[in-house]
């Protein structure tokens, strides 16, 4: 790790995270995230050979539900918080991706 964080790194991460940042924000984050990443480097002191990662603090396995239909929301409720709909579909600006 330890590689210092550049403005370009921060901008690239912002693209991945779909966050529009102002140039000032990029500056501030470059410095703040750089400091934090420098700090977390202390983890390198710890020998974690053969240590399994712990993703869940209380280990549980095999939690299932039965395949039984429960009521869905009425469409009106499903769409009720959406910024733009026609009462049937969610509307989003066109996706410029395909040819």
């Amino acid at each position, binding site marked *: *790790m330890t590689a210092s*964080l550049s403005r370009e*790194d*921060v901008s690239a*991460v*912002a*693209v*991945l*995270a*779909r*966050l*529009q*940042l102002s140039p000032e*924000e990029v500056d501030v*984050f470059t410095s*703040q*995230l750089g*400091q*934090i*990443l420098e*700090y*977390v480097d*202390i*983890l*390198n002191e*710890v020998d*974690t050979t053969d*240590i*399994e*990662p*712990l*993703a*869940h*603090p*209380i280990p*549980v396995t095999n*939690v299932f*539900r039965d395949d039984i239909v429960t009521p869905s*929301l009425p469409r009106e*409720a*499903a769409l*009720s*918080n*959406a*910024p*733009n709909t026609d009462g049937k579909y*969610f509307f*989003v*600006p*066109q*996706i*410029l991706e395909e040819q």
Partner: protein
Amino acid sequence: MSLTDATVTTLLAKLQSGETSSTEVTEACLARIDSQDTDVGAFLHVDREGALLRATQVDEKRKNGEPIGPLAGLPVAVKDVVCTTGMPTTCASRMLETFQPPYDAGATERLLAADAVIVGKTNLDEFAMGSSNENSAYHVTRNPWDLTRSPGGSSGGSAAAVAAQMVPLSIGSDTGGSIRQPAAFCGVVGLKPTYGRVSRYGLVAYASSLDQIGPFATDVTGVATLLEVLAGYDQRDSTCIDADVPKYRETVDKPIDGLRIGVVPEHFEEGLHPDVNKAIRNALDVYKAAGASIVDIELPHSKYVVAVYYLVAPSEASGNLARYDGVHYGYRAEEAQNLIPMYSASRGQGFGDEVKRRIMLGTYALSSGYYDAYYLKALKVRRLIRQDFDTAFADVDVIASPVAPTPAFKLGELIDNPLEMYLSDIYTLGANLAGIPGISIPAGLSDDGLPIGLQLLARPFEEERLLRAARMFESATDWHTKRAVLNHD
């Protein structure tokens, strides 16, 4: 003693005897909110009509001799990160300014089933990210003990609402100390349950493997009463554990014979405020006097909790908060004509600084080439942290420590220095990483008259022991009876 001054136990007794009614108690709380909350800013939303209607219904039920729940008629405030139908759930974010969830959280359902009266939604750091409540998109919450100071965070609104006697009970959520630290700053009792003890269904996720909902009250018994309602299995949360819920309230007054309290000597070294140091040492003396033994223990990896937490939590958060994109709900930047700019602008405008910072950090830690070095490494050290606790709990029943290195800091004091702010979470993060329960109880006042909290931690699912140990201290001291004096008192 006024209705807003009374403890949960007293209020329940008065309600039961008919000495007062839920309507009276609710009206008193609403009046108190009216008079004090312009200063404190604990609430984001007060459901005056809904609360009074519900109070009337509960009173009616009681009058008709119908079966009523264990919180019958008690006003409760809910952190605005827990979904409630009929009220907004904003997470103190612009992103969810207009969001009305079409469903109730598991915790909300339990409150309603217990016949509690939900009076409103409390302020927090946006999406529960922060330790000061300054990251709310709407307004800061001020510490009732000193309005220039932070109530702590992220459940600062819920802690302040209880401390300012606007409600006898409230619920918060704790991902890295977000119940315990505000409880300590505001001089109330707050408990973070074992991971899986309370359903997370309907708790808007910050960091899913760390988040837990928990209770606030002015005393341990109040917290025990509310925990008993909140705890229990919910099959809608795969990580919720199907284990019996003890009668916390019935057993809370039973002292623990031969209580063994673990203490980490390093916790009292550099960086700890002398007043806090003194208060915690005094607290240990109180325990000794009550027959407990104090045992020095080691938590060798506790110095890594901040680093581990600030990799694990932001990584999970970066995933959890990806859904706020202006498509299906929430804020949409209207100017963007195409999808991707719409996403980025909505998120850029809808989120505040701390949320963006953590999303950036988490996105980076999970990105190609860094995953192993950051996220995976953090999860491995997390296991070592958990193992430290397991080892320590072989010899002790609870672990005592400060909740925070200082009493409540000034608003604005740390806001521009995120790393400094993160480091102040050093005592609370371990419990979340290890999934164990923890409680903060009032244990003194600083020279400036600010509350100081004592933290106790216990083994997973030993909330009963935790509450009894806390109550032992409480019954031997009067710190929990101290109240903030507000301008309009």
